[in-house]
């Protein structure tokens, strides 16, 4: 179909981005959906591959091993201090790709929108995604939109998939942790989860904590360039640091010994967790990473992290140990010992 003539027809009546709402025609594959793509998504994501208007994006990959990742985003509320579902969707997948040491290149974005969703919010989210992608040096090159009836989706769900290329000589994966390796953390734990919880009905509290949602690929590129011996990288998202460290222990068949006093937690995050009876180690992060590296390279890696804006508060928080039981043990701040277990389900605030 000729792009020029299609555009001419569509120019007739523009979407009302101020007061309009998404309806079922916007997902039906016809003119209305095309209008949505042209007036909301394409301007926000703004890149040559997307502008071609094909159902797929075609590109050349220079060399190296490729990485692909996908994630779906169902966060509520959609807008929160420090971000929104859009920026989260970009950061989340860029980070998953980056945790292999790869240079992130392209993203796809799929939207499932509930009938009646305000166009103004959709446009805002799309803009936010575009900005996040540009800041991370990636492009959203292809996508999909579906609209479902009222009640069939909680306002908006987004799926993003991402691809990247791993530089030669880099081998980073969850099964490579070895006894005596150092465990580093890029910054404070629990910020994102607390920022979200502050707005959940029934738990309202005032806080200046903002989500730490951020693209970590720039930081990872610096780290990998300076210390190619990095063994494991992972971002502690849902389930918090506890889940991530336990996963690594299971994949690598090792244990860990942590120092509670070394793990950074902002006072407000601690306060919120105390109020709700939660453990900051179980609370989600969206802009932090765990790095496991041979002991002799730990100080050097720490310095690299601390030079980067996203790693200023980085700490060495423990070491990998041999342990057939694969426990994550922690020296508590008063000098006793406990394990850091991963939770069965979602944490719920407690009175007891």
């Amino acid at each position, binding site marked *: 179909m000729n792009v020029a003539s299609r555009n001419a027809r569509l120019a007739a009546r523009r979407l009302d981005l101020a007061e309009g709402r998404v309806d079922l025609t916007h997902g039906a594959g016809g003119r209305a959906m095309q209008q949505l793509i042209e007036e909301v998504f394409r301007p926000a994501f703004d890149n040559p591959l997307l502008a071609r208007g094909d159902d797929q994006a075609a590109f050349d990959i220079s060399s190296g091993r490729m990485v692909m990742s996908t994630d779906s985003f169902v966060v509520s509320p959609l807008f929160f201090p420090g971000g929104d579902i859009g920026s989260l969707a970009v950061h989340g997948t860029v980070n998953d790709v980056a945790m292999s040491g790869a240079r992130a290149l392209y993203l796809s974005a799929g939207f499932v929108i509930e009938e009646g969703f305000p166009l103004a919010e959709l446009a805002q989210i799309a803009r936010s995604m575009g900005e996040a992608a540009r800041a991370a040096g990636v492009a959203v090159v292809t996508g999909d939109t579906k609209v479902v009836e009222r009640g069939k989706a909680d306002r908006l769900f987004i799926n993003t998939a991402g691809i990247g290329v791993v530089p030669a000589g880099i081998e980073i994966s969850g099964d490579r942790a070895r006894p005596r390796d150092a465990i580093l953390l890029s910054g404070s734990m629990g910020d994102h989860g607390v920022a979200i919880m502050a707005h959940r009905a*029934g738990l309202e509290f005032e806080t200046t904590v903002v989500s730490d949602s951020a693209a970590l690929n720039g930081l990872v590129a610096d780290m990998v360039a300076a210390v190619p011996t990095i063994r494991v990288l992972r971002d502690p998202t849902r389930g918090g640091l506890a889940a991530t460290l336990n996963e690594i222990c299971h994949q690598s068949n090792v244990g860990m010994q942590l120092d509670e006093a070394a793990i950074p937690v902002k006072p407000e995050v601690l306060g919120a967790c105390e109020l709700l009876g939660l453990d900051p180690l179980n609370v989600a992060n969206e802009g932090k990473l765990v790095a496991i590296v041979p002991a002799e390279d730990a100080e050097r890696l720490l310095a690299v992290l601390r030079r980067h804006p996203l790693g200023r508060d980085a700490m060495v928080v423990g070491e990998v140990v041999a342990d057939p*039981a694969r426990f994550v043990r922690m020296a*508590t*701040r*008063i000098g*006793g010992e*406990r394990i850091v277990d991963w939770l069965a389900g979602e944490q719920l*605030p*407690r009175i*007891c």
Partner: protein
Amino acid sequence: MKHLDEYRDAETARRLATTIAREAATGRRYRLMEFCGGHTHAIFRYGIEDLLPSNIEMVHGPGCPVCVLPTGRLDMAIRLACRDGIILASYGDMLRVPGSRGQSLMKAKADGADIRMVYSTLDAVKLAEANPEREVIFFAIGFETTTPPTALAIEAAAKKGLTNFSVFCNHVLTPSAIAAILEAPAIRELDAVEIDGFLGPAHVSVVIGSQPYEFFAEEYRKPVAISGFEPIDIMQSILMLVRQLNEGRAVVENQYIRAVTRDGNLRAKEAVSRVFELRRDFEWRGLGHIPYSALRLKDEFAGFDAERRFDESYIPTEGIKACECPAILRGAKKPTDCRLFGRACTPETPLGSCMVSSEGACAAYYTYGRMREAAQ
């Protein structure tokens, strides 16, 4: 954070540990029960036992209202929640507790029951105000700390003239539970389980004061140290008990002097006595029937009593045979003495009351301390 960080200080903990080790080096054993689930949780979460000499043994008590609520009462709450038009408001603690036939409030919610988690009873009253065409039932649990908030909510609802708010009351009393432990046949037998002293609950005591424990100290000759919640509080209280036992004293000491007085909180106690009265009998999970151990709403508040408004009866259920909770709750056995612990019974698949709440002895040990078992 003031009044918190000071009681989590590593250096203070180290010094206390040294003092405790020195003063407990008498060749005798010290078996100390911490009554309150919050203390059990703190002991495991901070690894306090690692700082104590091996002749001091912490025995974990039944002070966890989630743990001692009989399954039959939870079943009633689930049935109420599943009725048409009902909104059931509940604290987070109860949502995942398994009732009979594998049901739970969380599962009922997934099946369509309108169940809302609240942080405070005030939120439940607000729900009733905001939904005048629905019936809002608040699922009330807790010891004396949690009872005054329920009393105030009922009075607030009465004052507002609400006709769609009621409370399913499961509030229980601490002194009754302590008495049940001390009366337990095992304690009175020779060569059976002995408890040498008690760490008294922190926040129950803020409400009821230190006075109610004096009876136990005198009658049973057991020292009591009312302890704050933080690890340093707990260690200081342990030191106090060690000293009392060394000196042959048996009195109530108050370590938590910054918040607990002898008489407690008069306003809170009065609010409770305005709204509630004693039930003649109440069944406790793991401890059996205890007389005058629980509360129900007074007749003048009958309109706010979910049990009277909605015809639901209590159907007692049997516990699992291999489950050692009754013995564990009394301090006669440890979690690792139970065949089911860590195998069929875990926090994800709890079979008994001690695993059901994050404050139960089995849950706390499993979540924070089970590496000790692996080492043995």
